[in-house]
């Protein structure tokens, strides 16, 4: 009996947490819909079912995060630090970034849209084949840059380079490139930084960085463990602008 109660308690707590996290969305929708737009909420039944899905989904995700994604990332980081094989560690870092980005649905959608924009501005010829080549090239450059960013970030943790210099240098480079890049690529380049870091990648990458920083002597997990995601959002901007300069001229 006690164990059943405990199990219930354990499964209700994440649900309550998820409810708290989702409450602001509900409040915004209800307030704007009724007080500002003066309209009833359409398909109330559907809305409620969908909302319950979101609620259960968020609770499950957060629970799984702590029992799977974090331990996997940390385990690997510890094992690499213990084994001390730089080559495999760097290859892993690159593949983690590259593999998670090349399949990212948000990036596929944005790349296709970007190809339409470029074709509309007559920068590439307006047929399916050349649009696809352009979109694939865009995706490949973003995926390469994310892989490279995680790799550089891991080297940074190993060497203990200060993050602000890398970030500031990166942004200065971006600002210096912006005036020369074609107009049609700038908006996409700036957005590419944001879309690359997906919900599964972020916890893994965070756990990898923190795991590495905690298992290497002289590194502080707070100071050195974070920063991988920042690099992974910065480098795609550089690469997409380079791609725009090379392909669109």
């Amino acid at each position, binding site marked *: 009996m006690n164990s059943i109660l405990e199990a219930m308690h354990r499964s209700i707590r994440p649900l309550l947490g998820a409810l708290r996290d989702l409450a602001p969305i509900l409040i915004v929708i209800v307030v704007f819909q009724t007080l500002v737009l003066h309209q009833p909420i359409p398909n109330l039944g559907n809305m409620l079912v969908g909302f319950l899905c979101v609620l259960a989904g968020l609770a499950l995700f957060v629970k799984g995060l702590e029992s799977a994604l974090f331990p996997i990332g940390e385990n690997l980081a510890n094992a690499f630090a213990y084994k001390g094989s730089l080559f495999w560690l760097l290859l892993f870092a690159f593949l983690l970034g590259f593999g998670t980005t090349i399949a990212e649905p948000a990036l596929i959608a944005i790349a296709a849209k970007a190809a339409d924009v470029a074709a509309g501005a007559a920068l590439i010829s307006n047929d399916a084949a050349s649009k696809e080549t352009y979109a694939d090239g865009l995706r490949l450059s973003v995926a390469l840059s994310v892989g490279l960013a995680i790799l550089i970030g891991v080297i940074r943790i190993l060497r203990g380079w200060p993050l602000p210099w890398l970030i500031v240098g990166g942004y200065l480079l971006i600002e210096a490139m912006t005036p020369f890049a074609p107009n049609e690529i700038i908006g996409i380049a700036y957005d590419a930084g944001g879309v690359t870091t997906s919900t599964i990648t972020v916890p893994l990458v965070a756990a990898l960085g*923190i795991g590495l920083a905690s298992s290497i002597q002289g590194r502080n997990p707070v100071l050195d463990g974070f920063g991988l995601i920042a690099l992974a959002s910065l480098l795609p901007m550089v690469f997409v602008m380079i791609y725009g300069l090379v392909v669109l001229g």
Partner: protein
Amino acid sequence: MIPLLHDILNTLSNTLDDIAPIIGTLFFFQYVVLKRPLINLDRILIGLFMVILGLTLFLVGLEDAIFPLGDAMARQLTDPAFLYAPGEVPTYLWQDYLWVYVFAFAIGFATTVAEPALIAVALKAEDISAGAISAFGLRMAVAIGVATGVAIGCFRIVSGTSLWVYIVVAYVVVLLQTARAPKMIIPLAFDSGGVTTSTVTVPLLAALGLGLASTIPGRSPVLDGFGLIAFASVFPIISVLAYAQISAWMIRRQSSPPKEEENAL
């Protein structure tokens, strides 16, 4: 019920496709390169299943319930028929769009609070800083940053000013803050810029940006519709740094009023 089930299965297979390369990479390195079996394999597999199922339900629910409504609301709020009384000549001045900025702020804040990736990073930060960084405080700081950024981003679309001016100014502010903020927060602050813009926030912001850019004359949906995400990535850096600066300032003021000022700040 049947279409919902269909949606769930569809999204589940997409999520599986999406994360197959990651899982493959992880297991290859764990078992082939490092040759170290995972501790608690069954617990990890159950957790992985929970992550995949959770993300699937989350996405299905968002797409079925929240996105269509958010989409419709963004379109209604930016519609000239809502902004101007019948018979009034639409002027498309930035002052007329007050509700749009309020909505952008509110929805930016609300979606960031629900962002799973941010929850993950905030939990990790609280964990390794031994509670010095509070997960709740960090998430609120990021959410306020996104909200402010998105509201300003909407103002930019309405007023038709150029994107890069805002971004350059924002990064100059970030640079100045980086020089003075407590060192411990800097990597985390930069990370929160990238974390905020994933599953929940991006689609809603895209709808808002497109709604604005397509109803205001002289704006191009392709050029102006993009760019809100850039705002949502820079402003959280500013707000997280500011949060750390304010907490450090308050702690100093409380603990040692007569002491000499520190050089670092």
